């Protein structure tokens, strides 16, 4: 197996890369945990508007410790802040935004992503207590579904697979994967490689991927700020 320790991106770098693609004024939902990090890296002049399932739109970043108001939280139950333009609404209206296709982008983590866009990210299927939250709603309805993920599991198994073996969160829903090694679109049932980290050959990347990597035009270098490594 190829040692990717030195070339793979940090989570911060993956989040940074994903943030570069978000248009000014895009309505975006960031999943709990790692995806929330995307908000930190919005490019100058591109202001996304963030939605959280529990009924807040256009909110600000986390407050300073000690300044939390626990009635002002995000879906991860972390404290957030108001900013000019914030609005509150109930859960049915919040998911009307989701299900009605009003979000431009949802960013989630993954256990597995299949080449047809199937996503498994809610249950390992090993008898853990099921907990789905809002993920199944988000993945079927946002205009674009981006996944942030390590390219392989801790054991080195591909997370980008031919067919998901873990319980599905949604079918055919993922549009782009930002992995620790590559940026990959999902088009017509195929993984289409757009960018890969420098120092990794095509063959090596393919060997770490569970389904064929297609190309469609140039494959660019995936470069991220060094200070985030």
């Amino acid at each position, binding site marked *: 197996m190829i040692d990717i320790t030195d070339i793979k991106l940090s989570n911060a770098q993956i989040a940074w890369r994903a943030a570069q693609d978000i248009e000014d*004024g895009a309505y975006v939902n960031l999943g709990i945990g790692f995806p929330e990090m995307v908000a930190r890296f919005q490019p100058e002049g591109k*202001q996304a508007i963030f939605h959280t399932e529990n009924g807040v739109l256009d909110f600000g970043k986390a407050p300073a410790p000690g300044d939390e108001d626990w009635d002002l939280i995000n879906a991860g139950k972390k404290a957030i802040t108001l900013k000019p333009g914030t*609005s509150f609404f109930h859960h049915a209206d919040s998911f009307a935004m989701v299900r009605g296709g009003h979000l431009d982008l949802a960013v989630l983590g993954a256990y597995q992503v299949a080449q047809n866009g199937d996503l498994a990210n809610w249950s390992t299927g090993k008898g853990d207590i099921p907990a789905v939250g809002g993920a199944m709603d988000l993945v079927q309805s946002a205009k674009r579904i981006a996944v942030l993920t390590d390219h392989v599991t801790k054991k080195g198994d591909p997370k980008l697979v031919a067919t998901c073996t873990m319980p599905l969160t949604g079918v055919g829903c993922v549009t782009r994967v930002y992995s620790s090694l590559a940026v990959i679109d999902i088009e017509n049932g195929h993984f289409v490689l757009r960018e890969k980290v420098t120092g990794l050959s095509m063959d090596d990347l393919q060997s770490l991927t569970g389904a064929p990597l297609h190309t469609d035009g140039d494959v660019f270098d995936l470069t991220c700020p060094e200070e985030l490594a």
Partner: protein
Amino acid sequence: MDKTIQTPAEAVAAIPDGATVMIGGFGGSGAPIELIHALIDHGAKHLTVVNNNAGNGHVGLAALIEQGQVDRLICSFPRSADPSVFVERYKAGKIALEIVPQGTLAERIRAGGAGIPAFYTPTAFGTEVAEGKPIAEFDGRSYVQERWLKADVALIKGELGDAHGNMTYRMAARNFNPLMATAATTTIAQVSQIVPLGGIDPEHVITPGIFVTHVVEVANAAQEEELNRSEAVYP
């Protein structure tokens, strides 16, 4: 991001012939008269219009129908103090009419905005309005399946608006406006006043900006009822 636009004319300029246009309001209250009149000036034809009513007098929706721009109307109640414009065209076979019970109309629009392709309602079961629609029984009662309603464009009227499209409404002028905002590809809102971002308390926002494409300020907007009392005609 700035969703404000300078004039009603600019706001409606891209509406194509054949578009499905939801128009807010219940009778005259909440009717976006200036946007409708701009649409008349713009001249888009063969429109399908969704509104609770069918216009009153010779302004607003009635004027749009009178100009021959509306091929089809989806509404609950095509009556008003003076429905003559609609009645004449309907009897002449020049406008198609789909009657939808008012609550079903509201719920179909909400469903369109909320990504619900179909739902069941007790309304109209056993009546001719339900003829041809799927019927299902739940817990021993029969219900009618209704489909979502979406539009290319919604023309709505609010009270306050900001550059992100957050909006409030004025009293009973709220009615269908917040629903239609959610169900159209392009939502164009006229508001009495555009306020700076943050000028609307987050607790008081009725339509969050995510549902609104363009906001145009129309201070001292016309009230359909007043126009009709003065026997106004547009254009």
